[in-house]
């Protein structure tokens, strides 16, 4: 079943690429055409292949829905290049797409890749919008055409906010020594300590498989109220399994991205019970509102599965971009990067990922993630209060 899904995905990808190619040709032919080709680079191979694919699928949904929304007036396509998680290839991809005269860029995963890639986009005078890199430095580069709908502060706020609401006094942070994870760990450490919470830090290598020694340290030495896990899926699984075996006396296991997802709920069902992680929407997704439902339906149609958070981010960033392009185009029938950027900066939208309002740096300060909790076959949103689908189950751990 998985495999056929994959093949379908492949077919869809090549179809999109084909359309994009045609679109580029058409665009090059007639300068004032109503067909807009977007450029996208995401990792479809390499370390970040999984997350890149998720964003890629969301972008495809946004383009498909835009074609329906603007049917008869404009058409959209996206030309995607696999950057293979390599900055040099991402830069080359951006340059190639720019040469193919794409209107703007949506995509990018990993702060280290987005950095140089977005600089290449700026050089080509194109707008670049992303949700794939949360490093604060990205929006501190004085670029006018760079937009990001999420940021590490938003993730950190959610995690710290949840701990605050739990009223924990001592937290052990287990984090992977990667760029995004160590940055996030430091953010959380700082803000928890400011709130008077005692913090212990445990940095582990990405290749760690046996977390029992770390967990035992947590259990016997730290004795925290809660454990914060900042890593990726394989780390979460390892940590939680170590927890299940050692059963430290903690009140909550809290993670960040890639944890409170439908996939983790399905594949590691027992392991993730009562575990928290960032999540925009509950699962099974109760899409409320027309747009959300349309998104979910289209996602299932195109990719044969329920959307995850990666798809939502990819979708939101691309939809914001598409709408800005249309607005920038329709007043004077011209596509200008500066104008698209202006339109984006004027956005005040309530999206699938919450409010989006860009500041002058292209950051979205109002971004705040939500925290979900695995409960049975469901992921309930438990923080913030106003978005709650259920009260948090606290204290509770998988074991």
């Amino acid at each position, binding site marked *: *079943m*998985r*495999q056929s899904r*994959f093949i379908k995905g492949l077919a869809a990808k090549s179809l999109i690429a084909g359309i994009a190619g045609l679109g580029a040709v058409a665009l090059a032919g007639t300068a004032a055409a109503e067909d807009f080709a977007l450029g996208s680079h995401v990792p479809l*191979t390499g*370390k970040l*292949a*999984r997350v890149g*694919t998720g964003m890629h699928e969301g972008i495809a949904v946004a383009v498909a829905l835009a074609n329906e929304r603007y049917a008869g007036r404009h058409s959209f396509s996206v030309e995607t290049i696999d950057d293979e998680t390599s900055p040099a290839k991402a830069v080359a991809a951006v340059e190639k797409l720019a040469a193919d005269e794409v209107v703007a860029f949506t995509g990018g995963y990993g702060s280290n890749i987005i950095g140089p890639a977005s600089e290449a986009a700026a050089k080509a005078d194109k707008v670049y919008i992303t949700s794939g890199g949360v490093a604060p430095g990205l929006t501190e580069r004085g670029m006018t055409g760079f937009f990001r709908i999420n940021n590490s502060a938003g993730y950190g706020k959610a995690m710290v906010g949840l701990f605050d609401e739990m009223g924990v006094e001592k937290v052990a942070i287990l984090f992977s*020594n990667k760029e995004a994870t160590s940055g996030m760990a430091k953010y959380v450490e700082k803000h928890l300590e400011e709130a008077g919470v005692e913090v212990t830090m*445990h*940095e*582990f*290598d990405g*290749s*760690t*498989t*046996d977390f*029992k*020694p*770390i967990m*035992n*340290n947590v259990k*016997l*030495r730290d004795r925290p109220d809660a454990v914060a896990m900042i890593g990726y*899926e*394989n780390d979460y*699984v*390892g940590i939680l*399994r170590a927890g*299940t*075996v*050692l*059963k430290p006396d903690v009140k909550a296991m809290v993670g960040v991205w890639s944890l409170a997802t439908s*996939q983790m709920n399905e*594949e*590691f*069902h*027992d*392991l993730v019970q009562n575990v928290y992680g960032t999540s925009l929407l509950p699962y099974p997704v109760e899409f409320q509102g027309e747009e959300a439902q349309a998104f979910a339906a289209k996602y299932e149609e195109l990719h044969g599965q329920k959307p995850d958070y990666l798809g939502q981010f990819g979708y939101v960033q691309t939809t914001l971009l598409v709408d800005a392009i249309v607005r920038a185009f329709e007043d004077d029938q011209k596509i200008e990067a500066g104008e698209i950027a202006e339109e984006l900066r004027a956005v005040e939208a309530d999206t699938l990922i919450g409010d989006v309002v860009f500041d002058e740096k292209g950051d979205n300060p109002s971004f705040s993630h939500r925290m979900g909790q695995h409960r049975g076959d469901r992921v309930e949103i438990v923080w913030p209060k106003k978005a709650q689908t259920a009260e948090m189950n606290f204290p509770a751990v998988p074991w």
Partner: protein
Amino acid sequence: MVELTLQALFSGLLAGGTYATLALGLALVFGTMRIINLAHGELVLLAAYVAFEMERSAGLNPLASIPVALVVVGLTALAIYLAVSRIRTDRELNSLLLTFGVAIVLTNLILIVWSADIRSTSSGWFLEGFVIADTLFSMRSEVVFFGVGLALIAATWWWLNHSWLGRALRAVSSNRDAALLMGVNPALVEGLSFVVSGVLATFSGIAIYCATVVFPALGHNLTIKAFVITVLAGMGSVPGVLIGAILIGMGESLTATFAKPSLQELTAMVVFLLILFLRPRGLFGRR
């Protein structure tokens, strides 16, 4: 403190069992043919993915998919041998490059077929805790495969020392020409060593699938770990592999417990280099 140390040693011991199974296949081929099979980790990974596929599509328990995995991995190992045996010049280095190429191919095939998602068994039985005296904690899978690993090592050791084929294998490894004179066909024996290494890789892969998670890029790490242990053990020493694996396992868990978890890898690498420089024949190597 005592509790922490004991748990670290226990965890290291169990990890060592898995590492030993992982390394033994590599060490066997290395001992027989002086060939470092850089695709060994990918063979292990392949077994894990076969188990995953059987579990997902047929609902089989990982243990039940061992026969299928044996066939798939054994044949792949044989194919690698057939390619390696075609090398005529500078076999030691060219085989390194060739198996390196095979490793890249296998990693990407796994990526294409099973995608980059992380996989692990959904069979809860393996993940249940196994606790000794309320102080030593482990998962059932770790204990089970520690036992399996010990049995495999004992079996391999017995096979090498007491069976005719095993002795032939050792004869080939010490002197190919003399073996020829004894009426042993070196090609057959070398092919056999690859297949046996595939068998060991299979068990190792299933063990890893049951205890931790697998993903396509994991193979490289597994190969490196296996090689580190092989060097530590020394050429041709089966018990050495077990002891080396346990030392590495314990070294890692002690580092994680008392120093800094992110330095685990550093410990293994430094030990590896020290052994290479100070005692290149390994802890238990002959010759």
